[in-house]
C-alpha cells in the first residue's frame, strides 16, 4: 500500500503578482515505512515540498495524496520538524513538547503527557533542561527540543527539514541512531521524509535518496545495506564510497570541468 503520493505537482509562489515556480511536475511515491532522504542544492525546493506534504501550502497543479486521501491541511498522522527553530518562546522546553503531545493524545492525563514529554527530552539529551525557556537554550538545544516534540508526538509520518543541521557531531550521531531505532523495521514502521545537506547522513539513514535539482526530481536511488546498521562497516564499504562519490558528483554536474568524475552505479 502506498502511503504518500505526489502526483504531477507544480507549485508557484506568488508575491505581489510576480509568480515564481518552485516545483515543476514532481512525481514521487513513498511507501509506508520507507525512510526517504531528500538532498539537493540550496533553493531547489526541498522545504517547499515538505510544506506541501504537511499541508501548510497547496500545489498550484497536481495533487498530494496520503493513503489515497488528498491532503487538505495539517493532520494528526503527520508531524514536521522545521528547518528553523519552531518553539514557543513563552513555554519551557517541556511545555513545548507537552503542547504537541496533548494534541495527539487527548485521552491521556496531564501526568502521562508530562512523562512522555520528559522521556522524549531525555532521549535527545536534554533531561536537565526541561524547565528552561527557549531563550536560555543554545540554537542546537532548541532544535533538539523541536525534535523531541516530533518524536514524542509519535506520528505515522515524520517530516524533518535539516533537523540535525545545527547540532554538534556527537549529538548528531546519537540522534541519527535514535531516529533509526524509533523507525526500526517492525510491523508499524514510520514513514520518514528527511531533508539533509549531508551526503553521508543521507546514505546512512535512508532506504532511498531523492536528489532534487532545481524544481524537479533528478535522481531516485535505492539504498540497501541489509539490516546492518553498524556505522563503521557501512562507512568503510565500497558501496558506500561509490554512492558518496556519485551523490557529490551530482552537485557538480552542471560544471564543465567536473573534478568529481561521474561514477556509474
Amino acid at each position: 500500500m502506498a502511503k504518500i503520493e505526489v502526483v504531477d505537482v507544480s507549485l508557484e509562489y506568488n508575491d505581489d503578482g510576480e509568480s515564481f515556480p518552485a516545483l515543476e511536475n514532481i512525481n514521487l511515491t513513498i511507501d509506508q515505512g520507507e525512510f526517504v532522504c531528500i538532498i539537493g542544492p540550496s533553493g531547489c525546493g526541498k522545504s517547499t515540498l515538505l510544506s506541501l506534504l504537511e499541508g501548510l501550502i497547496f500545489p498550484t497543479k497536481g495533487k498530494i495524496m496520503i493513503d489515497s486521501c488528498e491532503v487538505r491541511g495539517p493532520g494528526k498522522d503527520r508531524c514536521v520538524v522545521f528547518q528553523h527553530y519552531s518553539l514557543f518562546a513563552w513555554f519551557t522546553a517541556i511545555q513545548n513538547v507537552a503542547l504537541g503531545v496533548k494534541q495527539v493524545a487527548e485521552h491521556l492525563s496531564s501526568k502521562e503527557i508530562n512523562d512522555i514529554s520528559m522521556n522524549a527530552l531525555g532521549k535527545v539529551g536534554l533531561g536537565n533542561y526541561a524547565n528552561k525557556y527557549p531563550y536560555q537554550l543554545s540554537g542546537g538545544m532548541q532544535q533538539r527540543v523541536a525534535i523531541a516534540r516530533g518524536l514524542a508526538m509519535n506520528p505515522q509520518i515524520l517530516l524533518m527539514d535539516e533537523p540535525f543541521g545545527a547540532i554538534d557531531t556527537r549529538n548528531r550521531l546519537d540522534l541519527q541512531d535514535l531516529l533509526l531505532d524509533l523507525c526500526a523495521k517492525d510491523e508499524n514502521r514510520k514513514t520518514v521524509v528527511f531533508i539533509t545537506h549531508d551526503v553521508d547522513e543521507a546514505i546512512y539513514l535512508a532506504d532511498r535518496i531523492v536528489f532534487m535539482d532545481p524544481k524537479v526530481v533528478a535522481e531516485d536511488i535505492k539504498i540497501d545495506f541489509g539490516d546492518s546498521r553498524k556505522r563503521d562497516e557501512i562507512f568503510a564499504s565500497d558501496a558506500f564510497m561509490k554512492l558518496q562519490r556519485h551523490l557529490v558528483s551530482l552537485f557538480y554536474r552542471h560544471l564543465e570541468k567536473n573534478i568529481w568524475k561521474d561514477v556509474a552505479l
Partner: protein
Amino acid sequence: MIRKFLALPTILYFILLYIAFTSGAIKTDDSTAFIVVLTGIEMFFICTEFKYGARNGGNLKERQSQNSRRDITAIIFAVMLWWELTTKVFGLVSKVLFPPLDNVFYVFVEDYPDMLKGIVNSLYLVFSGVGSGTVAGVAVGLLVGWIPRLRNTVAPIANVVAAVPALIYAPYVVAVSPSFKLASIFVIFLGCFWPTLMNMIGNIAGADKKLLDSARSLNLGTASMLFKVLLPYSVYPIIANLRIRVADAFMVLTFAEMIGSNVGLGFYVKRWSNFAKYNKVFAGIILIGVVVTAINKLIKLFENRFIKWK
C-alpha cells in the same frame, strides 16, 4: 571623594538651597516644602553616585545609567535655578503668571487633602476605563484578528473610529450621560478600546509566518491557538500599548474633568487656573506627571515579575 561632591548637580543644589533660605525680590510662602524636594532629589543623586559612580566598581551599564542620572539631575536643577532667578531672586516676571517654586511646592503642604482625594478619584476612573477598555480590546482583537472574514469587516470600521480622538466626543458623552463618573469611564473606555483593538488586529494579522506554521502543524484547536499562542505572542505589544493608553486616558480624563466634574486632578488644575492661582496649577501638573510615571513604573514592575520569557 571631594570631586564627587563637587559634581555639577551638587553645586547647583547648594546654590538653590541658598536661594530657598534667603529672601529675594519677591516674598514667598514657606520654603520648607521646596527645600525638602530639592534635598530629596540631591540625596537620591548622592546615594546612586556612591553606589554606581565611576570609582565604585560599578559595571559599564550601571556607570552609563549613572552618567545619565547625573545629567538629568543637573538639567532639573539648572531649570529650577533659572526659574528661581527670574522669579524669586530678581522678580523679572509677573509673580502671578510665573510663581516661584517655593510657592508651587508649598501647595503640596497646603492642599494635600484635596490632592489626595483628586488622585483617588482620577485613578478610579482611569483604572476602570483603561482596564475594561484593554480587556475588551484584547479579547475582541484576538478573535477578530484571527478570523479573516471578521478581520476584513471590522478592521476598516475600527480604523475610522479609532482615528477620531476621544477628546472630540468627550463633551458630548459627558453631556448626555446621567452621571459624570459613568461618562468619563465610558469615554476613557472608548479611547482605550479602539486603539487597543487596532493594535491587536495588527499584531495578529502581522504575526510571524513561521510561528503560525509551527502552531498549525501541531493541529492546535482554535482555543489553544488563541490563548496559548496568539495571546502570549502579543503580550509585549499589549503592554507597550497599555503604557500609551494610560497616558492618553489621563489626557482625556483631565479634559473631561474640566468640563463636568467637581473633584479629581483635572478639575483641580482647571479650578485654580480659573482663579488665576498658577502656583496650584503648576503643582497639579507636577502631580499628574508623578502619578502617570508611577503607574508606568508599576506596569514595568508587573512585566518583570510575571513575564519570564524574552
